[in-house]
């Protein structure tokens, strides 16, 4: 028994030792678990649930110091009462006994770290634990405090890392923005350089279009204010270039002028070239895919500035040239020496050598302003007339190289102005500049004769005035009219009443020198018809066309009648 008892004592001591070491070992493993990345609440929960496993104790609660207040952690632990909280406040960070209702022994283990107290682990027991049992709970509290300190450090480290990541992300974003800005500035510099080179190389409108095409890769159209193509760069230029509806185009220009950025209309990205508030033209990027972005808009905007300067420059040149032409025309009309006239005309691109004719154009209700003069210029250009043009005393004056086609010019003006109510007088031929004043006077006389005629809308050439040439300008034509009425009145009245052509037939008869065949051919009628008409003329007029005096007066009357418009 003794032996057995001694063996039992040794076994009991060995078992106690093993048990104690095993408890410490289990606390060591528990410490590893506490330090495997858990947060403060998890660590305290692990400590609280372990208390009963390492001694005869019960966990009353865990408390963490947050902003100098003790916060029960984890929240909702069943024994963590407000009374315990109050007792802990009295301990002021130290550990010590604490009363727990219904328990003989209670103890608040302070959770200490290098930074000071961070909370409490409160336990209780039905009786005071042994020193070994107290020691194990104490170790558990120390390990818990260490794990909490590590968790706090890890959290701070995480916060720090998160802050670093945020700062790095911010810096990366700033770098990206900076890189974008640099890239944008470099692009803008290249735009500036290319457009500057285009300007230095002559700065033509076509040059600007080519530069924009090179910069953007999109086809570029430059249009005048009316939507007409002035220049194209890139592939697929439409032929013919579509002419926009005038009203819609004007509306579009007004809309675009109100906006600070280019306007997109279908596949066209449009920016205006404006100078002092006036639209001089438009630049259009052809972007069918709608892929043009900020860089293309910048290029368009910048190029439009260059284009506006170029168009304004061209217009200034045109205005100067126009003024020079006007002054030249004024001087030619008033008379200047031939050599000077040739030189000045050559300076504005016109060759004064060769036959020229002065043309005076006047339209009812239209002042001889720039718009009217330009309309005359377009009409003349449309007829391929090479001329000098100026406005003067309520009319436009053309110094035309070669004889103009009178009726064609009038019709062209009607198309330009939309009104037939206008008169054109064409002077006689002049072979040297010194004859221009005379031709101008003749043009004025022809214009006056036309305007005073019964058919004032049309063109009258001085060459065709016949007897009217001998009438001075500004004279009274009433006697002439009475003369015409005296000799042709019955025929004209008859023609008006019967829609016949007796006056025209008589006029043609005299112009053909009384030749029947020639007259019939000119009128496109049969010889017998002519004979019938001449008989009717004798009957209606009561005049004998074989009589020399009557024949002369009738011939003069038909000439005058023709000059005056050929109608009653």
């Amino acid at each position: 028994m003794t032996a057995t008892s001694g063996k039992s004592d040794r076994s009991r001591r060995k078992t106690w030792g093993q048990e104690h070491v095993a408890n410490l070992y289990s606390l060591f493993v528990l410490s590893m678990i506490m330090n495997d990345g858990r947060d403060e609440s998890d660590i305290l929960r692990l400590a609280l649930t372990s208390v009963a496993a390492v001694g005869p104790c019960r966990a009353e609660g865990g408390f963490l110091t947050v902003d100098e207040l003790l916060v029960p952690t984890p929240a909702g632990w069943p024994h963590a009462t407000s009374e315990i909280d109050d007792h802990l406040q009295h301990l002021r960070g130290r550990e010590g006994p604490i009363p727990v209702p219904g328990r003989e022994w209670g103890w608040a283990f302070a959770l200490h770290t290098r930074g000071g107290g961070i909370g409490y682990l409160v336990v209780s027991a039905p009786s005071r634990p042994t020193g070994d049992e107290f020691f194990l709970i104490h170790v558990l509290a120390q390990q818990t405090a260490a794990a909490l300190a590590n968790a706090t450090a890890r959290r701070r480290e995480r916060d720090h890392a998160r802050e670093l990541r945020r700062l790095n992300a911010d810096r990366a974003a700033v770098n990206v923005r900076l890189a974008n800005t640099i890239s944008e500035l470099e692009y803008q510099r290249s735009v500036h350089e290319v457009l500057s080179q285009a300007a230095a190389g002559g700065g033509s409108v076509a040059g600007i279009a080519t530069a924009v095409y090179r910069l953007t890769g999109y086809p570029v159209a430059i249009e005048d204010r009316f939507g007409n193509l002035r220049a194209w760069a890139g592939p697929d230029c439409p032929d013919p270039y579509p002419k926009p509806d005038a009203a819609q185009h004007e509306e579009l220009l007004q809309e675009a002028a109100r906006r600070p950025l280019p306007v997109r209309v279908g596949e066209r990205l449009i920016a205006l070239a404006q100078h002092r508030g006036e639209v001089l033209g438009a630049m259009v990027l052809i972007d069918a895919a709608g892929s043009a972005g900020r860089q293309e808009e910048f290029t368009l905007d910048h190029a439009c500035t260059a284009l506006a300067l170029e168009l304004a420059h061209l217009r200034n040149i045109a205005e100067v040239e126009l003024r020079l032409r006007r002054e030249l025309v004024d001087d030619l009309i008033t008379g200047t020496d031939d050599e000077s006239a040739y030189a000045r005309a050559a300076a504005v691109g016109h060759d004064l050598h060769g036959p020229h004719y002065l043309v005076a154009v006047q339209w009812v209700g239209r002042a001889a302003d720039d718009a009217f003069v330009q309309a005359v210029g377009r009409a003349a250009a449309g007829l391929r007339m090479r001329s000098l043009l100026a406005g003067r005393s309520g009319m436009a004056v053309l110094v035309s190289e070669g004889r103009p086609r009178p009726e064609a010019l009038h019709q062209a003006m009607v198309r330009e102005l939309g009104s037939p109510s206008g008169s054109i007088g064409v002077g006689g031929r002049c072979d040297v500049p010194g004859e221009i004043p005379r031709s101008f006077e003749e043009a004025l006389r022809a214009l006056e004769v036309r305007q005073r005629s019964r058919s004032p809308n049309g063109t009258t050439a001085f060459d065709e005035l016949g007897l009217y040439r001998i009438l001075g300008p500004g004279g009274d034509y009433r006697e002439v009219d009475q003369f015409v009425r005296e000799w042709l009145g019955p025929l004209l009245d008859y023609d008006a009443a019967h829609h016949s052509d007796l006056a025209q037939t008589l006029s043609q008869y005299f112009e053909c020198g009384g030749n029947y065949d020639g007259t019939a051919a000119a009128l496109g009628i049969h010889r017998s018809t002519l004979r019938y008409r001449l008989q009717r003329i004798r009957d209606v007029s009561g005049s004998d066309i074989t009589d020399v005096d009557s024949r002369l007066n009738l011939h003069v009357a038909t000439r005058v009648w023709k000059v005056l418009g050929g109608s009653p």
Partner: protein
Amino acid sequence: MDERRARTPVPVVASAVASAVASAVASVGRVPLAPGDHLCALYRGRAEREQLLTPFIADGLREGHSCLLLAADGEGRALRDVLAANAPAVGPDSDGLQIMGPKESYLLDGTFDGDHMLDMLHAWSDSTFSAGNGTFARLAADMSWAQPLVQPAFIHDLIRYEMKATRWFMSCPQVGMCLYDLELFSGDLIIPLVKAHPKVWLSGMVVENPYCAGPEEELDPREEVLEPRAADEV
């Protein structure tokens, strides 16, 4: 329980790492295991469990070991598929692998009875090693099923079972691994578990416990020092 089996003397497991390496027949997370080892693996979450479990069983199948997997409830099929994917040469219907859920093992009668469970394990090893062909066996047990049952009396029974299981592991050429999820179990179970296992795997390390509560302590009815105390006792 068979008294003869319970009284079979076995050496206390206190082998050094060096000797374990020398006689290693299996490994867990590159940590070698020796025949008779009973490892408590404390993992966090399903992903870490599969990192431990899958190679342990798949390697065993490749080595021709008999493998018994006591899976969590409803996970047997999924684990078999995972293993088949990791050990394709063996195939999902390999004879070497037996998978049982808790209702077929720990909770066969609806409640946990450690002695019945040990009888089942002994029957399995009798069957596995009866041929005497020198085969080796591996057992892995996912203990997640125990989480809803945790209370002092259950912990007492479970720890007693684990201690006896240590003796059973040492009785045959086999190794075993019990897997406990730290996200499911708290200190009240972890502390006695650590004390009851000769080896603990945690965060990639194996911590040896030469002072673990061995079968001798468990068998002495007068010694209760290793048994966890119930809350109402304290």
